[in-house]
């Protein structure tokens, strides 16, 4: 049976949903193993066992987070060799893709990014050209590296749990030689809302919010949604750049995308057109966003959103 190695960088207190998705995909492809970096807390370890992880690897070095990407890729390459894995799964974040990129050169392995599904034979499914095509692709090498987008599969624990013991992987001493150092790190304040790329619902604002995201935040909290923004809104400084959705920002594929005060030019569309349902509110009936919206309101978002928020609260009691 194929061995599938999942890389989990800093599992934290509890595993993220995207990590659970990777474990679920790994089990559908073969025998799942995990290489993690950082501390492994009891709850996270219990989740790995519940998801049927057969083998567990930790790095010999504790300072991998002090460098950008390079040493993590060296560690992972060593873990792939020890485990005999033929498929490696990582998250689809900027760093996840870069670790995959360096790993692929070390192993001579093909890498496919932005994967949304993997067939049992290893065929990967993804969208390209900003969601205008869906393609299937395969690595033609003995080892395949896949970076998988969040919200690709419903996480499911294994029928039978396991009790994997962590094996230490020696990180080569040369691993840090040609790597940039992280000399300072400032944590961003937590919003209390779901992660934008993982959220089931996204409420996004553009030029039309005119600096006031208040009505969007109220609606997002009533729906348990994440907040996103168009480039116009982030460039204006109304909201942080990490909220940007579009060609040069994040790509999201939520169940529901509520677009408020965004015209929906091609740059924006690139980041959200694979959403399942799109709702748009805009004053301008000519906005391109109405061409792709399942439900559109030509109206003032400062009237429509608070009314919707109040109605949702009423229905939810």
């Amino acid at each position, binding site marked *: 049976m194929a061995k599938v190695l999942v890389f989990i960088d800093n599992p934290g207190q509890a595993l993220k949903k995207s990590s659970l998705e990777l474990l679920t995909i790994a089990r559908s492809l073969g025998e799942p193993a995990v290489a993690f970096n950082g501390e492994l807390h009891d709850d996270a370890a219990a989740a790995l066992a519940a998801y049927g992880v057969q083998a567990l690897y930790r790095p010999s070095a504790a300072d991998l987070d002090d460098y*950008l*990407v*390079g040493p993590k*890729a060296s560690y992972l390459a060593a873990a792939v060799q020890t485990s005999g894995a033929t498929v490696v799964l990582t998250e689809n*974040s*900027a760093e996840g*893709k*870069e670790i995959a*990129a*360096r790993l*692929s*050169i*070390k192993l001579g392995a093909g*890498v496919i*990014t932005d994967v949304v599904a993997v067939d049992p034979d290893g065929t990967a499914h993804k969208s*390209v050209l900003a*969601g205008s*095509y*869906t*393609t*299937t*692709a395969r*690595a*033609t*090498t003995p080892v395949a590296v896949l970076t998988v987008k969040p919200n690709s599969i419903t996480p499911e624990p294994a029928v039978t749990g396991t009790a994997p013991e962590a094996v230490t992987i020696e990180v080569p001493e040369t691993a840090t030689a*040609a*790597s*940039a*150092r*992280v*000399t*300072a790190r*400032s944590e*961003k304040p937590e919003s209390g809302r779901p992660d934008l790329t993982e959220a089931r619902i996204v409420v996004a604002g553009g030029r039309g919010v005119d600096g006031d995201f208040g009505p969007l935040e109220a609606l997002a909290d009533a*729906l348990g949604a994440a907040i996103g923004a168009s480039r116009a809104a982030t460039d204006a400084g109304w909201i942080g*750049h*990490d909220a940007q959705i579009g*060609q*040069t920002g994040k790509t999201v594929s939520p169940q*529901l995308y509520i677009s408020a005060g965004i015209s929906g030019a091609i740059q924006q569309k690139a980041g959200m057109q694979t959403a399942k*349902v*799109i709702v748009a509110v805009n004053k301008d009936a000519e906005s391109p966003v*109405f*061409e792709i*919206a*399942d*439900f*559109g*309101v*030509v*109206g*003032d978002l400062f009237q*429509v*959103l*608070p*009314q919707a928020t*109040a*109605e*949702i609260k009423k*229905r939810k009691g």
Partner: protein
Amino acid sequence: MEESLKIIVLVKHVPDAQFDRHLAGEANTVDRSESILSELDEYALEAALQLSEARGGEAAGNKVIALSMGPAGAVNAVKKSLQIGASEGVHLSDEALAGSDAAATSLALAAAIRHLGADAPADLILTGMASTDGETSLVPAQLAERLGLPQVTFAASLELDAGKLTARRDGDTHADTIETELPAVVSVTDQINDPRYPNFKGIMAAKKKTITTLSLADIGVDPAQVGKAGSWTAVETAEVRPPRTAGTIITDEGDAGIQLVEFLAAQKLL
């Protein structure tokens, strides 16, 4: 006075995202007929020009070389870069390169960068944060791995002082300060600067600048290592996603918020 810099900026000729873009041919590669300089590469070029100008520009021996790999049309990305201000251009072009995936692309670019550094190695290799067609963001990190260099990727700011490069990188949960010595591979985001446009003087000056064309033989790469044959991934099928169609559009007459919620309830999204 700081030492002069030799900077190679990677520029890509990509289909204009303002129009419909297509996959074509047996290998499902991107149709490049309506192509432009990738918008995201303009930020890398601007960053290179600013670093050069801060050290006295070309007059002080600084070089900004625009390197593009791609079919005949890719020379347009090089020309545009020269108009914007690059000091020389290099076009890596070979029929065998067609259909290269990120791994094969990084192999060819690494060989070209070594070739261009034969007399004096480049201090910096600058790229955009992604290509606007492939969108994988793999090449900068793969290039760094192949060249054995540190990578400073997704830089939102960049400072260079006495051979030490400092960058800010914004993540989702934290912002990092990254430091490295040169040489290094650096990719920059669209937050780093406001790229300049080519002006009349730049367009005229570009006509006198040199564009060198390199083949695989020139850079010592076996054609079997690149293109479809040398790629480690293959696109097997490609289907046009059915275009989204407009649904119900209403004009607010005082109760649109409630109608919106009714729509969500009907879709079981509450």
